[in-house]
């Protein structure tokens, strides 16, 4: 495979003895919501400072361990629509979490394993295949300043991470120097441990602390019914719709602390799972708390994802947590010879390509090309959400990257842009429509057929 070349430097690593080097990640396109995160800001909750950190701490820790970092180093959390970045020097990276079809210079990048990427490479994401949030770790870690002991971004108060905000075009992040092993090693997650997030999951919960604030029927409803993630979800909380859960005497309590994964039931009787950017305290009943081992399933749920809550004991939950730790520990011990890693890579990428080819291409912010002198292109929804406005009309000429419509997802307004210049043939949705990923939004025509792949790497 020609693409091996992109990663080939694992075998032609710099001569041993040369010192570690600082390198840079330049952002060409920030994606939907790409932030620097670590394991969160610990110790300042008593001052009202949210923990923040990775929504899926397991995937972040796995990414760090794969590249030989300590668990708590900063990585990029990439939400649904990935960024487009340039790496200045040879660097070992790992992408974990959601499968957003990562590519290096146009060739698929295998996930859940360390890959040495050559300086000058461009890393991009073709589109979501599974999950919601991917993590990109680089050996050495992203060297943004620590704020209150953490590099995590808290966008609501605009501190931490890179300038307290999501990455955007023109940003430059420093990657700290990491020792380059004289004997190159390639770590990978055991294949059977690679998560598949899918469209439905069971979430194990420990009941309480306020399970006694619900009627027997309310508790039974919570544990019996299926709940669906709504687009009104973000890093603060994942909101679900479904059968109402009845309180004994109202949803308000005297405010108390909030744990990561707390299932808060407000006055409308519907669950909100409190996530990384949650407030440190809250005044609503919390019927249960999602176990730590299942937090990745919440973090990786896209709107429309269905869940079913299952009660377990604290002891069972902690047992699950230890199993998860063993999976992570197996990474550090899995250092394998680069040659066998390369073999693994070819196998992986081939199957990934087959499995994901359709969705990857359709979702590549998505153009499909029809035969003919005038080519019709369909622009598809890059994410599930609500169409808030359609900015173009049939017959209108559009420039490359011109916003065509705006989709609201995760409480943010996201413009969907023309992948190239052309003329609008039809609009296929209206303001107020709810759309799923891949739903055709706008059809437009160009004068000549484009032969390139939709995603030019």
């Amino acid at each position, binding site marked *: 495979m020609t693409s091996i070349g992109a990663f080939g430097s694992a075998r032609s690593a710099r001569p041993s003895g040369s010192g570690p080097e600082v390198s840079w990640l330049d952002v060409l396109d920030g994606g939907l919501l790409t932030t620097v995160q670590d394991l969160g800001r*610990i*110790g*300042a*909750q*008593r*001052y*009202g*400072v*949210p923990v923040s950190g990775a929504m899926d701490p397991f995937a972040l820790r796995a990414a760090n361990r794969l590249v030989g970092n300590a668990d708590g180093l900063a990585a990029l959390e990439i939400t649904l629509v990935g960024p487009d970045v340039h790496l200045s020097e040879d660097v070992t990276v790992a992408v974990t979490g959601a499968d957003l079809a990562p590519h290096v210079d146009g060739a698929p990048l295998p996930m859940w394993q360390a890959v040495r990427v050559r300086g000058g490479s461009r890393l991009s994401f073709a589109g979501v295949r599974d999950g919601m949030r991917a993590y990109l770790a680089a050996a050495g870690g992203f060297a943004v300043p620590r*704020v*209150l002991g953490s590099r995590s971004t808290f966008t*609501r*108060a605009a*501190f931490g991470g890179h300038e307290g905000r999501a990455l955007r075009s023109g940003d430059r992040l420093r990657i700290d120097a990491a020792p380059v092993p004289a004997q190159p090693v390639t770590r990978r997650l055991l294949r059977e441990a690679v998560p598949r997030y899918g469209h439905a999951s069971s979430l194990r*919960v*420990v009941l*309480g*602390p306020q399970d006694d604030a619900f009627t027997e029927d309310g508790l039974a409803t919570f544990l019996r019914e299926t709940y669906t993630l709504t687009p009104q979800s973000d890093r603060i909380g994942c909101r679900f719709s479904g059968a109402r859960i009845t309180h004994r005497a109202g949803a308000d*309590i*005297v*405010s*108390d*602390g*909030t*744990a*990561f*994964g*707390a299932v808060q039931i407000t006055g409308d009787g519907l669950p909100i799972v409190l996530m990384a950017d949650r*407030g*440190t*305290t*809250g005044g609503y009943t*919390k019927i249960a*708390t*999602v*176990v*730590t081992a299942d937090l990745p399933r919440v973090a990786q749920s896209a709107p429309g994802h269905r869940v079913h809550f299952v009660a377990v004991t*604290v*002891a069972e*939950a*902690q047992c*699950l*947590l*230890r199993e998860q*730790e063993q999976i992570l520990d197996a990474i550090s011990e899995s250092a394998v010879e680069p040659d066998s890693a390369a073999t693994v890579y070819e196998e992986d990428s081939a199957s990934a390509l087959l499995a994901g080819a359709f969705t990857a291409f359709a979702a590549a912010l998505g153009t499909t090309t029809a035969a003919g002198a005038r080519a019709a292109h369909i622009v598809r929804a890059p994410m599930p959400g609500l169409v808030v406005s359609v900015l173009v009309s049939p017959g209108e000429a559009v420039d490359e990257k011109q916003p065509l419509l705006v989709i609201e997802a995760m409480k943010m307004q996201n413009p969907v842009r023309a992948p190239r210049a052309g003329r609008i043939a039809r609009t296929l949705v209206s303001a107020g429509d709810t759309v799923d990923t891949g739903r055709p939004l706008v059809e437009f025509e160009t004068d000549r057929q484009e032969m390139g792949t939709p995603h030019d790497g």
Partner: protein
Amino acid sequence: MSVTPRLLAAGDRALVVEYGDAIAEPINARVRGLAALIERSAHPGLVELVPTYRSLMIHYDPLVVSPGELEAIVRDAAARLDEVAAPASRVVEIPTAYGGEFGPDLAAVAAHVRLSVDEVIATHAGGEYLVYMMGFMPGFPYLGGMSPRIAAPRMGTPRTVVPAGAVGIAGEQTGIYPMKSPGGWRLIGRTPVRLFDVTAPPPALVAAGDYVRFVPVSADEFHDLDRRVRVGAFSPTVRKRP
């Protein structure tokens, strides 16, 4: 006599230690005292303690401390609580410009409670307010002890932007916005003092257990203090509470 708290699991790595469900100073003092005692144990499995109105949330690492061991630490501390003298509280003075551009709702509040503007200011600035807990947003103190004589309902439609330092009333509560945010409190004044600064150790001006007193200042004094705050040449007066 020691009071036995209720221990409630909040998942597999947080424990709630609860003393009833009332908002009252003695209960809140018990929560803070318990936090101080548990902190003194310096157990490596303790991650973070968050005191609130009537309960303490203990975030812990279950790989380092078992729930049984943690429970023993908590029960032991709870039993010794009455032997330990509470530390003296601090009173932090918050210079506040009332009314006008600083407190656009002051006149409406006065009209609502049928007092003069000066009476509302005197009542608000006459109290000492316990910081029961921090939360809602970084550096935000939940204050208790406002006179019900100046209670006023929230705005029907919250403002989209409330400036940092705004002092407001919502129901029987008063509060200070530590940072610019949307909000529905009736704004009666504003302080130039920063309640939250990520670069300061600790990042919040006040902590649970402190008291806050509002000290009226003129518009000129506000602007002068504001300049001094900006160059780091002002820190609010802090007194020990007898």
